């Protein structure tokens, strides 16, 4: 199964692998949500939604729905 950003847990890190879904707004890409960049889940609101992310140094919040279109690869804890 493909891992998506919606599966990320608090404090976990991952690398974005694919953002080609048309459900991802251009604005999100412009804010740095691009393949190869790292992403960390900083905080979640109740029900894991929305998600407060740190994408490559950019701090932003998106809804879980959007996050489920962003494919990732989890990074093991150092």
């Amino acid at each position, binding site marked *: 199964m493909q891992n998506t950003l919606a599966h990320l847990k608090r404090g976990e890190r991952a690398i974005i692998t694919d*953002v*080609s879904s*048309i*459900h991802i*707004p*251009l*604005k*999100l*890409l*412009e*804010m*740095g949500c*691009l*393949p190869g960049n790292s992403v960390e889940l*900083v*905080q979640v*609101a*109740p*029900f894991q*939604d*929305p998600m*407060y992310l740190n994408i*490559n*140094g*950019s*701090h*932003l*919040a*998106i*809804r879980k*729905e*959007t996050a489920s279109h962003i494919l990732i690869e989890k990074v093991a804890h150092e």
Partner: protein
Amino acid sequence: MSKQINVALIGNPNTGKTSVFNALTGLNQKVGNYPGITVEKKQGICKLPRGVKAHIIDLPGTYSLNASSLDENVVIELLLNKKDKDFPDIAVVVTDVENLKRNLLLFTQIKDLEIPTVLVINMADRMRYKGISLDIGYLEEKLNTKIALVSTRKNEGIDKLKQLISNYKEVSITPCIDTAQIDVDYFGNLKKAFPNQLLYKLWLVITQDVNFGKTDRNEIDPVADFKTKSKGDLKRLQQKETIKRYQFINNALDEGQTIDLSQAKDLRIKLDRILTHKVWGYVIFGVILLTIFQAIYDWSSVPMDLIDGLFASLSEWTKTQLPQGAFTNLLAEGIIPGLGGIVIFIPQIAFLFLFIAVLEESGYMSRVVFLMDRIMRRFGLSGKSIVPLISGTACAIPAIMATRNIESWKERLITILVTPFTTCSARLPVYLIIIALVIPEGRILGLSYQALTLMMLYLIGFGTAIISAYILNKILKIKSKTFFVVEMPNYKLPLFKNVALTVIEKTKSFVFGAGKIILAISIVLWFLASYGPGEEFNDAENIIKTEYVSENISSEDLQQKIASYKLEHSFIGIAGHAIEPAIRPLGYDWKIGIAIVCSFAAREVFVGTLATIYSVGSDQEETIKNRMAGEINPVLGGPLFTFASGISLLLFYAFAMQCMSTLAIVKKETNSWKWPILQLVIMTAFAYIVALIAFQFLK
């Protein structure tokens, strides 16, 4: 005479662009609107070395030139139109040192329009805390620009920036990336079809048309031999473009910027752990709101009493010092009490704007957006609706404009429709005076009953907004894509200068905007109350004298009786009596009726109207509050303002749509008369019914 240099300040939101603008222009700034749209236009004058002046325009914050809202569209419209009188001689792109990478995206786009561009790296004072060091020389070379390292907090780097602006002719216009490289075939064809145009400009025009529908741009007509692509393909190209831009930026920053994470002291993480916590986050938000309301109440009571007394004395003084006559009466009974009714609320409104400015400036507002999104969505709103709903407590007009960054049209429309329920500052005067009349003093747990009542009214307004949103969400059949991206900016100590300027600007526009209407209405009212048709008005003195001729009545009482008889038979009295049957079941008399009718121009007129009506014919020096307390209910006897009629009036004002300016804004933002008319009818009918029930139950 030397020419003014046109400067455009451009930057992402939360980069301190406005601080830079304030630092450059100080008080030499004015805020207006772009013609035809309600986007705020800020401009100012900055004095440069050697007597040159720069005309600075602070463009709305935007993340990129791919505009997705009206505000952002202003930026691109200006930059694409060389004939615009504001077209910049130089663009100043403001970036935040901590988000340099992301902020540079916009910079590369503006460079590619071949406009001379300099770069401001703002908040340089934070570099030390974040372990960031920059090689400015290297970056200037890689990015083909000049850089000013600025700290508006410490007032550093502004002189350097001024110097860069005055040397605008030497600034490079070399683009950052070669647009043709994004897709060789596509852009090759485009170039062939429009050989004289800048490729990136063409590309922007094409993609903007995708976002906005066909806009009228004469420069680029569709040419038969050039086939554009499908929406999906264009979007893919935009993705490719974005990736290319980041490659360029990374290439420059890899060596130009080093970040030593071990040096970074992160206040953000610590604060966010509490402020966005699943439980504590909400508790803290509640406490903050409660504190704000208590503070507004406590802090402003002293200056308000002072102003109230001052205007009463001023009225009295005018009457005794100026020669008697119609003009003196107009001044003393019409204009001064009318203006007093608005000036008295300056303290409260200023405090309200102050708190909202601090919440926004500190970065806390975004955390509230994050906390509330899930809850708001259940009601058909977006987390971003919280900003209009909170700033709606100041004024619904800017609040409705603030809905522009809500991405989904349905969520945005619902927010626009329900925002007027939130307690705006124009309702505050009405609430305060009525609360003071009908709610007893006293405290519970350190909070006064009066403050708690006010808080309740705010909650009722907010609650009604939420519930109506829920209903609208079920009724409205609108399909729109919902997505939600919100930046979580760093926490910042609000800059005194920024907050002060916001408070002054907003309060000024409230007072002058409302002041004009109130002045006009109070003059008209005074005439209507001072003159009347027919025998009964003109012969009032004789009629009353004959009526009371047998009774032993002091001349003072007699004068009072004549005055009130005259008022009842003046134009306004006749109009008031005509509407009285409709409002009597709510517990109001015809004077309140007049005040309510006038309130449809703007709510804050209420107090001024009552002040004007009550002061016509009265000789005593009285504050507005005492006059209202002295009013007698014509039917039931006893004071007019009782607990029942007071509550009924409070609820009427809480729900009724009584603001022409808001209706005008809603028309503009929704581009249809349907929505404002629905708002007017439904809200007012609802207000009537609730007020009716309240009075009948409580009386």
